[in-house]
């Protein structure tokens, strides 16, 4: 026994069960119900988009890690999650080329060239969406699909195939309310029976997923709550008929806000870690979202709002440091 080799190594010698892979795949899993709903609403092509997006992301990660001489880390799920999130911010009618180019951009330029996991400035899925919006402007703004509504949700005027936010921006509140205003419309919007990006249609499923992540303490409440609250507040204050006449619910339930608040803005790498900084970060995401939606040229602003706040995140992180146990001893 004296020749036996014992492992040495620095304490602690016990470790918590949480792993990066566990976190990533959990987030991946709680996103899936929305994907299945979208496949039902928009057809099986959605699954093909997801397959191409996730597959490309994983292969791109492997290729880049090989090229850069880094250890492969495909099983940690972070590339797969980026691929899935990218597909979630695409319109469901785009060609399969878009998730391919998008995932390639997200992983190669958005993530690996910055240093890989943990070192990217921007949320990779969102920076890739911004890239696609420039590279494929028509596909990214016109290939919406109007889902067929089940009988119990069918409203009188469910005909427009624009997204709710596009309707709101280009045709005004009256047109929006005609489709999404009544009880039927609101339910359809909440449950997810409305046109929109692949992964944003169902505030219900996304919120349930987000609440699960909160319960598992994978994310904290600060960013989602601050982002949703600031969006709702600004939507109400700056209404179309003057101050305090807005439709906060329309802005909260439509577009990518819920997806962004729970799954994009909470990305560990590109958001600050301290509660106060998180509140500022989330509120900034909400405020920029509303600025773009109300004053900008696009009907939707979640993507750019989060990307802009990603730029601010390092500053916020440096501004709010954890409170120390005690101040230094006063020398007298």
């Amino acid at each position: 026994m004296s020749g036996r080799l014992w492992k040495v190594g620095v304490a602690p010698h016990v470790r918590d069960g949480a792993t990066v892979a566990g976190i990533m795949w959990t987030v991946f899993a709680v996103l899936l119900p929305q994907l299945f709903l979208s496949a039902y609403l928009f057809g099986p092509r959605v699954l093909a988009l997801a397959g191409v997006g996730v597959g490309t992301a994983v292969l791109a990660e492997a290729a880049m890690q090989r090229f850069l001489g880094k250890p492969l880390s495909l099983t940690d799920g972070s590339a797969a999650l980026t691929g899935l999130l990218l597909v979630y911010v695409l319109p469901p009618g785009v060609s399969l080329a878009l998730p391919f180019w998008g995932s390639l951009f997200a992983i190669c330029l958005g993530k690996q060239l910055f240093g890989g996991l943990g070192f990217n400035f921007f949320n990779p899925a969102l920076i890739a969406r911004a890239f696609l919006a420039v590279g494929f402007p028509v596909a990214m703004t016109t290939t919406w699909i109007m889902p067929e509504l089940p009988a119990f949700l069918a409203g009188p005027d469910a005909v427009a195939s624009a997204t709710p936010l596009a309707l709101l921006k280009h045709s005004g509140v009256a047109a929006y309310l005609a489709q999404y205003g009544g009880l039927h419309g609101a339910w359809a919007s909440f449950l997810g029976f409305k046109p929109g990006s692949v992964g944003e249609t169902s505030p219900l499923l996304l919120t349930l997923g987000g609440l699960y992540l909160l319960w598992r303490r994978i994310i904290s409440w600060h960013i989602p709550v601050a982002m949703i609250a600031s969006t709702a507040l600004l939507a109400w204050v700056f209404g179309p008929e003057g101050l305090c006449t807005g439709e906060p619910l329309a802005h909260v339930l439509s577009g990518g806000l819920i997806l962004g608040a729970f799954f994009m803005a909470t990305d560990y790498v590109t958001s600050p870690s301290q509660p106060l900084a998180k509140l500022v970060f989330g509120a900034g995401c909400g405020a920029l979202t509303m600025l773009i939606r109300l004053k900008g040229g696009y009907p939707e602003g979640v993507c750019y709002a989060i990307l802009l706040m990603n730029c601010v995140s390092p500053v916020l992180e440096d501004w709010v440091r954890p409170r120390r146990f005690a101040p230094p001893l006063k020398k007298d």
Partner: protein
Amino acid sequence: MRTSGLATFTLGGVHPPGRKAPAAGLAIEPMPLVSRYLVSLVQHCGAPAAPLVKKGDRVAEGQRIGAVDKGLGAHVHSPVTGTVAGLARAFHPVLGPVPAVAIERDPEAAPAAWTPRDWEHLTSAELLAVVREAGIVGMGGAGFPTHVKLSPPPELSVDTLILNGAECESYLAADHRLMLERAPGVVQGARVLLAILGVPRCVIGVENNKKDAVEALHQAVSEAGEGGRVRVQPLAVKYPQGSEKQLIEAVTGRRVPAGGLPAHVGCVVQNVGTAFAAYEAAALGKPCYERVLTVAGRGVGRPANLLCKVGVCLMDIADHLGGVGEDAVKCVLGGPMMGFAVPGLEAVVGKTTSGVLFLDAWESPDAPYGPCIRCGRCLEACPMGLSPNEMSIYAERRKYEGTPRFGLWECFECGSCAFVCPAKRPLVQFIRASKARLKSGGCKL
């Protein structure tokens, strides 16, 4: 954090798996005598003790064999009666090989008998000398010489003695069993320390997963008629409750300033095992050469709480307890959160050895580490409010000079950050490397 209303510290903290069940229910048993003892001359913080014996000398149990007369340190005593086989080297988990005295036990010699004596009439200075002569050090693991800790700077006024019975490390039950089975001795130790310090009150902090020990101490306090001065304080179960600064906050609500001493907030903290050693020194005249330690882990035949003399090598302990299993991969001195993994079983028990853990690969998994994903869990876990994530990123890039502004010098390496890290980053290792590099570079910032 769940605290169930019990006193605890406020910042950070984690809940490692307790794994105390097997050892916590086992009564203290004596480790049988072995033939050879290798007594390290560095069982304390400070310089090695100078050997007082040479090869061939006859030594008696409890005889002083190593002395520290100048500077920080503590005397060393022979654990048995026998013959000095020579001056040798013992393995120290931090310093590597250190001077030691090898003693062949005389199998004929009777065990030393320590007769009770009256210590109540002794003055504070006389009792302090007794503690110093007995070579008592902090038995929680740090090994800081107790007589030094009991002599706080005179300009600071101390009003509270805190006995540390938190035992927040997983597996360990040595302090638990000591408090349960030797409660009167611990309380007498508290009286000795109170007499030395001349302070009006003592609080014994015990994590509430040791309810029977709390009960035993309560009873011992009232039997000693010390209800007015000594209070037993149950604490929430949260690591690192047994850290000095965290325990002081849990018990008194005071926070020791960064770079300050417990005495700066009017406190002196001693481990319950140290108090018991002070009792033995004062009331029996027995020096500090044995202690209770927990042997546990799935890699050893059976767990135990051993009353073990210093100088026993780990191999002897393993043999006594049914040997080491095939699956054991790591041998840790101390607890799993802050203890030291030793490279071989030639390592010996010292005054600070609170546990010997034989861990298998399930208990102590080997996980390759990845990049920091900035999840912030280490920031929530750190009881000092530091930023281990940032320090690790700087250290990984060898930019050690970037670490102090994130609190490098306030880190006491409790391991909470590394415990929770989902990327399994060796955060303590990065922090230690930064400290070592900056110290050797002479640019302490």
